[in-house]
């Protein structure tokens, strides 16, 4: 998710940079009104998120799903400090470990530090107010907020790609790929967010900005293994649903997102298949309707990526035990 230099054109990166700089400016003002202790608090929360991002969970071949932490930061320290924390993490990553391009910093802050943080925060606040006020439900809300925040960041990325991307692939291909993969990353993000929040709520609920003013009745502190599995299955269903409903939205009316000419768009049937596989060109052979074809390809792709992820874990686990 860390966009490197040259991935998105200069104009789009600059526009995102202006939006991000302005938002970070407002966040600095708001956050320093909230606490006077902002410097060490935000710095240490950023160090914590940075450490947490080293937790990698395998998603599939070539995809390192590491925690983004946007929703978690928002729930723990509020959206203003959350945006600052994520921005600082991204700046340090760009300058000290060359992860994410300097010219794309505005884009990265926008996706992970603003979109993910605010989507996560608003959803979490809305849900904790609407749902029964117990710790258990707060954890479920945080998991949903985390999942949706990752998918929202992936959608933000796709919009940026549509505006200033280097073309090549059709928009729907990018959208299906990004949303599919990030739906899977979102499951991991949700689990970690939920369990971390559960652990904090069990010991220091007063530290959680997201439940300020909400009187939570304590339930169990962390979800059981069965609840985690239920969430994984639920997440898969949501991931597939996204592939079914979000992906085709881009095709019938490319003008909605599309500011650059994506010439051929969806005519994969009229092109020679890039490679002769059953999923060539993101359309399934033998299925005539293009849209059904992409959905099926996206769905199969999602399941396959998920399967590869599980398979790799099984392999790693076996090697460790051996």
């Amino acid at each position, binding site marked *: 998710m860390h966009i*490197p*230099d*040259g*991935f998105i054109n*200069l104009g789009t*990166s600059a526009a995102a940079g202006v939006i991000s700089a302005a938002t*970070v400016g407002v966040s*600095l003002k708001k956050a320093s009104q909230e606490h006077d202790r902002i*410097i*060490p*608090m*935000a710095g*240490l*929360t950023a*160090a*914590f998120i*940075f*450490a947490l991002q*080293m937790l990698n*969970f395998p998603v599939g071949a070539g*995809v*390192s799903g590491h925690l983004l932490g946007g929703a978690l930061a928002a729930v723990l320290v509020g959206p203003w400090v959350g945006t600052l924390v994520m921005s600082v*993490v991204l700046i*340090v990553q*760009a*300058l*000290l*470990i*060359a992860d994410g391009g*300097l*010219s794309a910093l505005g884009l990265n802050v926008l996706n992970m530090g603003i979109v993910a943080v605010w989507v996560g925060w608003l959803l979490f606040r809305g849900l904790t107010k609407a749902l029964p006020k117990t710790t258990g439900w707060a954890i479920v809300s945080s998991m949903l907020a985390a999942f949706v925040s990752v998918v929202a960041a992936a959608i933000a990325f796709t919009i940026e790609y549509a505006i200033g991307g*280097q*073309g*090549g*692939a*059709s928009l729907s291909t990018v959208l299906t790929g990004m949303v599919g993969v990030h739906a899977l990353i979102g499951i*991991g993000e949700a*689990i*970690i967010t939920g*369990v*971390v*929040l559960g*652990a*904090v709520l069990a*010991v*220091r609920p007063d*530290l959680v900005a997201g439940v300020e003013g909400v009187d939570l009745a304590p339930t169990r502190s*962390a*979800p059981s*293994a069965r609840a985690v599995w239920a969430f*994984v299955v639920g997440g898969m269903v949501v991931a597939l649903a996204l592939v079914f409903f979000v992906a085709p939205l881009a095709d019938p009316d490319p003008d909605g997102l599309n500011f650059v000419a994506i*010439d051929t768009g969806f*005519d994969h049937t009229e*092109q020679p298949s*890039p*490679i002769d596989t059953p999923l060539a060109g993101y359309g399934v052979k033998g299925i005539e309707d293009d849209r059904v074809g992409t959905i099926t390809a996206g769905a199969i792709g999602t399941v396959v990526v998920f399967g590869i992820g599980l398979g790799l*874990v099984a392999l790693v*686990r076996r090697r*460790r*035990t051996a």
Partner: protein
Amino acid sequence: MSGSHAHALYFHGHSAVHRLPGAVKLAALFVYVLAVVATPPTFFPAMVVHVAVLLTALAFSELPVGFFLRRLLVDIPFVLFALFLPLVGTAPHIEVGFLSLSVPGLYAAWNIIVKATLGVGASVIVGGTTEVPEIVAGLERLRVPRLMTAIISSMVRYMEVVGDEFKRARIAMEARGFRARWLGHARPLATSAGALFIRSYERGERVYQAMAARGFTGHMPDLEERGPISPGQWATGLAPAAVSLVAAAAALLLT
């Protein structure tokens, strides 16, 4: 804290690039990266200039080539994405062996790989030759808000402390026979992450109290004497970036 300011990317040395002020290197990095991104990717002479500028800077920085190449690996996920583009890209296609590759996809892949690699390379040179306090002072000199640079330096100062605390928790778990499995793994790991957050946050409160007790006024003191940057230093530092900027401008005019 051991008092060392070195970070993961830093490589100790005394080259001409190491001695340049942080502000100059950050400004040069920014200009260079913008020039690279603005260049039309199919204008190959300009790309050759960008590569030459990067290699010259690398030579002057005296960073070992192996170190430089290892740090370039951050690039890989997006290179994989880029390599995928010719396969799923739009028409027209060309036949290469048994593959049929999309021509716009190939251009996009070339564009992403070359620009991302140049950007990472330039960041590695700046990161490899600049210590953290110098980077923070440079950001401040480049008019990044004080509050922001103060948060950055407090983060960097505690990054290793928090990371090490996490590692210790992991070692303690392993010592008690906890074996990493996927879903079973997530819960104890995330619980310890929760404990880590509480510790980090409480440490932040203690740090603030210590700072307040010592008369903190909202600005982190800089322990090193940093004189004004001479025009000569600006000129030397920005020269390579200026060359790339000219190349980019020429490329934009000629295409």
